């Protein structure tokens, strides 16, 4: 306990900033940003520490924005079924849809070990857009690219499932036809 206290004191803000910048560079949303622009993004981020087992947000609550995992591990699950959708760790991000629309959170997220998150929120992004429109557009464009890529992947999955479903329906029809013929 005392060690971590002194550790935090001596780690200092510079080391912290360096860690944040390293994490940001790995996130596709901030790809292609200059050092100065990354510093501007860093200024609007909120660094939060979560204990293992602490809820980050609940399904159904207003979506305020996204979180980047600087260090740690989280579990994303559905409230009703407790079904785990995905487990995320260092460098992953979640809740990015909250930056764009007003619909509520679609799942609950819980920290499964002591974790440090960087929160980027819609309110701060809107302010950033109003005072640095060029940087705002860059981030929104990158965000759209990420979401577009994800949408394309979902579309491909849906298409593959549709083809599978179609084949299965055809097979079932063929099988039903054979059984009818045998019975006659």
């Amino acid at each position, binding site marked *: 306990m005392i060690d971590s206290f002194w550790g935090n004191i001596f780690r200092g803000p510079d080391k912290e900033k360096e860690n944040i910048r390293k994490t940001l560079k790995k996130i596709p949303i901030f790809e292609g940003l200059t050092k100065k622009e990354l510093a501007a993004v860093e*200024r609007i981020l909120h660094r*939060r520490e979560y204990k293992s087992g602490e809820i980050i947000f609940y399904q159904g609550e207003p979506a305020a924005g996204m979180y980047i995992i600087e260090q740690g591990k989280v579990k994303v699950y559905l409230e009703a079924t407790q079904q785990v959708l995905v487990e995320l760790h260092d460098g992953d991000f979640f809740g990015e849809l909250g930056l764009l629309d007003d619909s509520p959170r679609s799942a609950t997220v819980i920290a499964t070990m002591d974790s440090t998150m960087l929160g980027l929120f819609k309110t701060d992004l809107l302010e950033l857009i109003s*005072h640095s429109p060029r940087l705002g557009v860059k981030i929104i464009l990158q965000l759209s690219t990420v979401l577009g890529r994800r949408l394309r992947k979902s579309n491909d999955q849906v298409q593959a499932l549709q083809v599978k479903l179609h084949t299965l329906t055809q097979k079932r029809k063929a099988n039903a036809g054979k059984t009818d013929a045998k019975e006659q």
Partner: protein
Amino acid sequence: MRKSNNRWKKIALGGAIGLAVLGFLVLIGDLVKLFIISAILAYLLDPLVTSLEGRGLNRLQATATLYILLSMVLGGLLFLLMPALASEFQALQTGLDIEKTMTFLDKVEKLIVSWLKFLGIRNLNLSQKFGQAMVDYGNQVFSNLLSVVTLITNLVLIPLMAFFLLKDWRAIKKRLISLVPNRYFEFVLILIYKIDQQTGRYIRGQVLDAIIIGILATFALWLLEVRYFVVIGAFTGVANLIPYVGPISGAILAISVTLIETGDFIHAVYVAIAFSIVELADKALVQPNVVAKAVNLPPLLIIVVIIIGGKFFGVLGMLLSVPVTGALKVSLQEGYKIFRQYRFS
């Protein structure tokens, strides 16, 4: 049962803390007044600083640039208008024709006495009371000189506080939010943003409305050749910040000056009509477009807060009470709306 007991304890504790904070604020009243005026100034200037930031300046450069530009504009205006304003103020100080006023007051007194004879009123001594008031005014000049020092200090302090609020508000906000526990952090973040937006829109709307009314009233009074039209017009604009009382007091001032100066009732009726038109234009055209629609304060509440503001903070308190109450109402409304969407147990 224990849970509801705890809730009441929390409410009682919250109320006690609220009262203590309010008491503390009343005790340091002057500082609170300064802070509120600085915050209002910062809210007015914030969109300009933000738009300068959009042109590639950082927050400090943008704020400093705006201050330099504003001082140049204000300096230029003062340089151009000073001779006219100075002569108007001088005329206001020396030009109050005592003899004319006494005759006018005698006339008014006779009129009132003839109307209210049935109440047993025979003598109001209006002119004598006016004379006494003039003597008191003369005695007050010395204490006014002392308050000039405070005024100059405030004139320096307010822009300075507004400067730091403009420059550092985002950092202050971030630091405050970092103190909030994880569970309430998103809620507070959204709440502060909404309050900030709505309060800014409300204050900018009110001040813009006051400026438009001030200009319209000045123009109308200039057309009607009322003396001291700039001072009365400006007074009407500022007074417009106080609903009900403001517009009427501007009109009463203008009508009284017209009556004292010219003694012509028809002229005074024209002034009254002009003020009614300005008021109508305000209600029909200016307010619906400029003032935030969400902030509708009930008339009784407005009167109560004006009285409370006046009691604790004087004339300035009366002026600030309605905008501050408006901002508080917006905060409570938004807070409740967002709070309901969260699952706080």
